[in-house]
């Protein structure tokens, strides 16, 4: 049985690059590299983290050693972002090893046009025994019917 303090691995060495929205102007990326990718990186160069807005490169971060997450601040609300983790070769070509999911930062501009469409929503009626029987229950009756109450009397 786990009784002592549990410890989790710092990383799992499974390939993942995940982008998350913190606020309309801040996105957060974390990543994890497999041993195979670590080997690839070792042979090539330092890691770069690139942030794209829609499909346009907007930030290129030379990652300090031992980083495994990054906050991009001052991104734009109401936009789509994704990022890539990889390295640049001698010729300057960027080779992404991992690509993140795409996220949308929430917009901060109220819409101009007004809603014209309407929908009719339906609310299901509650199950029969609980509707239209106001006051017909005695609390005690109710208890007797409850299986999960049975067999427990904490009074000493």
């Amino acid at each position, binding site marked *: 049985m786990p009784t002592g303090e549990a410890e989790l691995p710092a990383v799992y060495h499974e390939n993942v690059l995940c982008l998350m929205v*913190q606020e309309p102007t801040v996105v957060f990326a974390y990543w994890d590299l497999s041993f195979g990718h670590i080997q690839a990186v070792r042979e090539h160069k330092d890691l770069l983290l690139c942030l794209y807005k829609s499909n346009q490169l907007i930030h290129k971060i030379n990652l300090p050693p031992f980083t495994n997450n990054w906050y991009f601040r001052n991104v734009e609300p109401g936009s789509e972002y994704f990022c890539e983790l990889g390295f640049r070769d001698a010729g300057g070509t960027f*080779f992404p090893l991992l690509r993140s999911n795409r996220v949308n930062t*929430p917009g901060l501009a*109220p819409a101009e*046009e007004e809603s014209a469409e309407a*929908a009719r929503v339906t609310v*299901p009626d509650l199950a029969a025994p609980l*509707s239209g029987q106001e006051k017909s229950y005695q609390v005690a009756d109710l*208890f007797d019917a409850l299986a999960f109450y049975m067999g427990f009397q904490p009074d000493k």
Partner: protein
Amino acid sequence: MADGYLAIILHAHLPYLRHPEGKEHLEERWLFESITECYIPLLKVLENLSRDGVDFRLTVSLSPPLMAMLTDSVLMRRYANYLDLLLELGEKEVRRTAGHPEFGPLAAFYRENLLRVKKACAQDYGWNILNGFKFLQASGKVELITTAATHGYLPLMCTEEARRAQIGVAVDAFTGCFGFSPRGFWLPECGYVPGVEDLLKERKLAYFFVDAHCFLYARPKVRSGVYAPVACRNKVAAFARDPQSSRQVWDRHAGYPGDFHYREFYRDIGYDLDLDYLRPYLPGSGIRVDTGFKYYRITGEGSLAQKAPYVPEEARARAAGHAGDFLYRRVEQVARLKKQMRRPPLIVAPYDAELFGHWWYEGPQWLEFLCRKIQEQNVIRMVTPAEYLQLYPELPTAELSAGSWGEGGYNLVWLNEANDWLYRHLHRAENKMGELADLADGAGGLEKRALNQAARELLLAQSSDWAFIMRAGTAVGYAKRRFKSHLQNFNTLAEQLEKKQVAEEFLAGLEQLNAVFPALDYRIYSRHARAGLKNLSGGRLRTAGARYRVMLLSWEYPPVTVGGLARHVHDLAHALAGHGDEVHVLTCPAPALGTDYFDRGVRVHRVKQEEITADDFFTWVEQLNRALFALGRRVAALYGPFDLIHGHDWLIEYAARGLRELLRIPLLATIHATEHGRNQGIYTELQRRIHWREGQLANEADLVITCSNYMAEEVKNLFGVPPERLRVIPNGVDPENLAQKRENELDCRVKRQRTEEPLILFFGRLVPEKGVQVLLGALPAVAARVPGARLLVAGRGPYEDYLRGLAGRLGVGERVRFVGYVDDQGRNRLLERGWAAAFPSLYEPFGIVALEAMAAGVPVVVSDTGGLSDIVEHGVDGYKVPPGREDMLAFYLSELLVNHLLADELCRRAWRKILTLYDWRYIAAATREVYGELVS
């Protein structure tokens, strides 16, 4: 009729704090204090109102962990002991303060309260406080709803399945407790992210709540602001919190709870009195904690030492005053709003229930005064969201913006430097849980128990409380411990499940320790839950148990095989039959087989050879369609009635449309590829006519299936088919073709032992859009890094001569072998030898060859285009390169040839993906889901 409505919502939640393992756990006191000071006083207030005939309305959200704790015999027994101890302390306090003009009466006041609470628990509710709520719900004045299973913060989960489980498990737990399904849902922390409404709809939840800015930034603009609900596209209603009424209660300084006459929470005898005196009543025989005996009022801005004694009567008078003030301001608000609105404004005021009585001691009294005062006037009526929706079911539709009620309005509180590390663990566990659920379809015994417990541990780790506490900075140690232990339990169980070595003793221990959600079924995490399995518990689905009689139309069908269509329809037909459907395939002649026969559960009807005689292509097509139409009519008369027609590609378009009209049943069309796409334009008369027929089929069909998002986009753009009529379902891989069986983990290393030279494979027709020229262009660079590299090109086509010439010109002629057409077996033999496979297409509707390579354990590099984009996750189960980029193709291919560790990692992940996502059983189940939509 009232001028306006007020909906007060109390959301009650505590994290799951059950520690059967130890004698005393400090954190269990959070529950005990809340019962004593909040839940019981609130119940009593509501019962008083009910008894006096006050026509109030209140919505109460009860979180599943709270429900579980309030019905847990271990915890309730401990609570009973806790109360007895406090009563003993109360007696001592009464004696100690005897004669003191202020504290004496206060001590007696608290002792009386404790006695009342004990009496309520024992006599009124039989130590199950939920009974009190149940009784109130029965009165019709209180609507009970629930929230996510462990109060998981939905916007920061990474899989839809994890969100579905949080919602589904909660609805089941609630239904188990109360005997009816909740109609509304409290999103934990009001955390909304677009798409959540679809999951709510699956469980028949009619409404939920968001914060005001989710309405403010909605599209299109919401005319009525936050003062009327809005319908999401799927007709689930959203209510927005009114900022004004929130502030009056919530605000630390300007809000009512800060009034100087109210009780001071932070002065408690637990901290003030002598330790020896208190020791018997403190946990761990001496840890100072709140006892609930609080003798001072807030008094003023001064320090805790400068507080004046609490006077309950004065505080009560203030509560009455504040209730009057609250109502007065709502009346004012309504008077202002109703001028701008076409229907009476609705003010939605949600609060954490624990604020009432616990932090704001006088909160329950305030609520009672408020309800009574509302009764005395006609401007405002109290309402529940469900009642409001029954009064005004017509709502404007809008797409809400994401948001929460946390600081900053978004995810900051649950994602910041203090807690961002949680997510790499949580997300991995979410994905792992989905994968385990997929792989263990129909597990039993120990395996099933382990899967269910793994799901419980994941749910408990997801509780938003842990991230919140880490940010807030108090009790951080406890939150970290809890988070880590649940996650570690999950990881251990997952590892045992993967190795098929579940340790029963360990599992049994966890089942006892973290015993929440006894009825949980792990299959709720399956990624195929949407496709027919989601009728797990309660949420009945149309397709559940349904058997369809379906007519599949295809111009080719094995053994008559021209392209990939025949194989697709064949595999689909058999997988559907495997689901219990009655499948009739109507197709081209195959004289050796006859016109009507059974093939392993699928009925095949073929037109007669003599019915199709033309040499001219279009006459031939017309004859085929006439014959198929006549055949369809006969088959329907013999076997009918049919539920629907499912036609594949344009060649059967005329027959399909005719049969649809004749039989008056829905037509579903799968469009595998388009003439426009294949040729990157329409240039000839032949192409124009095919294109027109494709358009006819796409537009006449009730729904259209495409095999990739890319194709859906293409069909939308080419034929103007609206997204509402498009469904994307990928192609499947025949499980019999899989190189390995599901039981064993794939071993990719074998391949390299079979072939000594690094071998790259390509399969496909030799036409420009398959991109072999790009691959040849990349080969010199590959050879520079991997001297022994070879390329094997399997397939034939008009481009072959050009490609052979190109290989020579590039100086890689001797590295490339063109082996011509290979059948399935030949392909499998080659796949056994390949070190990597490249599919550098410029156009690719789906890319089944890539799936086949992945299924056979060959790492792939594909073009980031068309269906291939959907199949491969870059750097995880293959690599993607922009179409035409020889340098990048060369880089990834050579990396896979030299970096064996990496190659094995990618192909293991790819293989799992095939097993869990592209098995025909799942693809057929997804197709049946579309059948269900059409038939209903």
